[in-house]
């Protein structure tokens, strides 16, 4: 007997996608395998490592702990949606590059989404606040020191962006 398929509409990075998925299909698998958005990585599938973190209505969520059907009707942002509209790297992406905040890059998308939400909530994090912001994500390569630097640098770049937007307005 074949599994019942649910027709759902997912809004990912501002684009709507109609997909048919079984009820048990994880959002992470739907993003990766059904939509080809392979930037979201799966590191543990039990919600601990944070590699699969996406933003659901702006809030960081573990896409391995969420069914695709539950994401219907919500705005989902993945790492592919973090670049600037002109295609240049977004502030968090740019900060990771500048600060050598990544090595193998596998955990990176989850950090980028988490920090994007974090600096939206706290635009001027101290180093301690930066550590708190990323304390739910595992990285096995970097030892985290450069990721903490990247959080602070990303906040600085985002503040510069806002300042220049305000200046232009």
């Amino acid at each position: 007997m074949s599994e019942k398929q649910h027709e759902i509409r997912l809004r990912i990075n501002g684009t709507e996608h109609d997909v048919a998925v079984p009820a048990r299909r994880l959002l992470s698998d739907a993003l990766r395998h059904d939509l080809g958005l392979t930037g979201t990585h799966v590191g543990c599938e039990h919600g601990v490592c944070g590699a699969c973190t996406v933003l659901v209505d702006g809030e960081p969520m573990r896409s391995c702990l969420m069914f695709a059907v539950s994401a219907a009707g919500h705005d989902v942002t993945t790492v592919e949606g973090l670049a600037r509209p002109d295609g240049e790297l977004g502030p968090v992406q740019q900060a990771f590059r500048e600060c050598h905040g990544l090595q193998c890059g596998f955990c990176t998308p989850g950090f980028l989404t988490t920090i994007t939400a974090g600096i939206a909530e706290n635009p001027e994090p101290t180093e301690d606040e930066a550590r708190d912001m990323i304390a739910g994500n595992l990285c096995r390569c970097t030892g985290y020191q450069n990721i903490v630097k990247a959080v602070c640098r990303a906040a600085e770049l985002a503040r510069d962006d806002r300042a220049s937007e305000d200046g232009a307005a």
Partner: protein
Amino acid sequence: MTTKMMGAKVQRVEDDRLVRGTGRYVDDVALDALHTAVLRSPHAHARILSIDVDAVLDVEGVHAVWTYDDLEGAMAEPLPLLIPHPTLTHGRTQYALAKDEVNYVGEAIAFVVADDRYVAEDALARIVVEYEPLPAVVGLEAARTAANLVHDDVPGNVGARMEQSNGDAAAAIAAAPHTLSLDLKIERSACMPMEGRGTVARWDPDQGRLQVWTSTQTSTGVRAAVAAKLGLDLGQVDVITPDVGGGFGVKIVHPWPEELLVPLAAQKLGRAVKFTEDRREHFISSAHERAQEHHVEVGFDDEGRVLGLDVRFWHDHGAYTPYGLIVPIITSTQLLGPYKPGAYHVQFDSLYTNTVIVTPYRGAGRPQGCFVMERTMDAIAAALGKDRADVRAVNFIQPDEFPYEQGLIFQDGRELTYDSGDYPAMLDKIKELVDWDGFESFRAAKAAEGKRVGLGLACYVEGTGVGPYEGAHVHIETSGKVKVATGLTSQGQGHQTAFAQIVADELGVRFEDVEITTGDTRRMAYAVGTFASRAAVMSGSAIHLAAKRTKEKALRIAADALEADVDDLEIVDGVVSVKGTDSSIPLGTIAVLSNPLRYAFDEASKAATQFNVGDPTKPPVAEDDEPGLEGTDFYSPPRSTFASGMHAVIVETDVETAEIRILKYAVVHDCGHLINPMIVEGQIHGGVAQGVGGALYERMAYDESGQLLNASFMDFLMPYVTEVPTSIEIDHLETPSPLNPLGIKGAGEAGVIPGSAAFAAAIEDAERSALPSFGITAMPISPSELFALRAVHASSEESK
């Protein structure tokens, strides 16, 4: 103006795609592939009486199922014993799918191919296996006692017993004015890359060719293994290693059962097939490392100079020995670190247990050796009432003693000969960095606040860049762009950046114009792999040599074209010019001239057609030449090059809760000349974090029946940002290696090696301020273990 790239903190070219989410890891490839799942043994030790897969094929979406009985030819033979060693008298490897018996929880028994992973896992649940459970051998004590055997035909569970010595250690100890003995222990941990194992294969029936994408540390190794096992010619198999989400050693093991079963299924089914390991599978079916127990006898003089050192240890290698004896051989040799004992004897038993296989994890046996040697140094200092750094200093090999022969045979079968180093200078640097001499006043100030702090120091030497060789191919295209291939793989070390820096410097081209490809057997079929901190040394050197060869050819052609002497030419930003003149020619044009053409396809190639170039009286390609602006070369050193380092850590141990806090972490590191200091420091940061994990958190919790109780990230405690030092003080020493053209030594593993040794020393130092008899002999140590250890020492001091 081209600036020198070697030694510059160049930002990584890998990062753009990785931060955009457009990297390509193996599970990102072939989205149309069929998915697979593996039935794994729930028993640590059992005979398989029967396997019934009949119900599986009724599951809609299942394409095929394999058990051992379906395997033929070489696939039905045991997996390769990759590194045979004459001492490994009882080496054993598993089958791709278990035959008659399973020897660890997680061993592969059946392989299902289905439309997706969900359906494949549904199918696994329908397979019925009848087992006859056998007694499990878990832990070194059970292995050594050998009341039960892992393999019936391996007496005493001993896979190998190996012995090496330099001088008469027993006699030296017997004659020494002071002696000590220590019993020391390190527990199991594992690499735990964020991306597990994974393999994708496509069989092209039109070409009769197999394409394999795999998350490995050796593309060429997998290629040879797949070809041999599937009965294909090497030329029919291409292996591509895409972006790899971390390795740390575990992915050097090959072929994993799935690395063979996926290509087999792809060939049989005519479809792309994919295996993506999940985290629980990674815990129970990929490799672990570290578990060893050591007994040390040491004799020393009044200064703390080691006169004789005798080490007997037991190494838990798990259920099988695919990677031979590499880990315990490294422990037994690299244990000596920067020291020169008067005499040394070491003997180890490598023992079977019914647990996951043990193969190199970053550091590969060195963290254990370093722990043992450094605990010994601390014990000597305590026995003599001497400063711990002073005791180390009197034992150092001196800068004028290089090359220094330790009188042992290393992991590569070559003499253990250190090429260069300066350990006294390094000790001075680490003492300054951590303020060694000011520590007692810091301790007193903290004590006045009711706080307990301690300082630990650990030194190591690491043989890096082991052979046999690596190669490189450099090709300058007619656009002037430089395409470089080397065969070893990358798993986050920034090879595309570091290697491009080497090429830019040697060729005189812009860094941006260099593109590096790694781990693709179509581009470089001769390679070994990424392990033993060898990539920069081996491929870095090969790339340098290949670039040099290409440059020589470019200059020869340019000299002809510009009617100048080769010695008068220079290359800057990809343009060859006669020094001090306007006469110049771009490398792209030289590439055009290097390849005489019959047919033109654009303006540049028009210039190379035979009516336009060359002496009409000579062959268009000279007898001793070949077309194209290319160079290939290989680097094969006589032996390893020896990097070194020292770590110092200051900890606070909570007087009430025994919680361990890191107050300061300092590293001095010598990997010869640095290619990219940013990348090297990143490697150190990551290594230190893994050292923290190994010292304070990580252990594989097997129960007595061989079940791994903490096979998840929820229960296996890997450091988050909250567990690592907030900053690491780093200083570099650069004593170049005389063995390679760039003077470099490996840096990848170093950060993790002295972790357990340094933390044990620091915690012990902190505790001794309250309990003078306190000693640490086993790592890792948790707060509750420290709490319990305090109670033991407190009661033993009371009873004195």
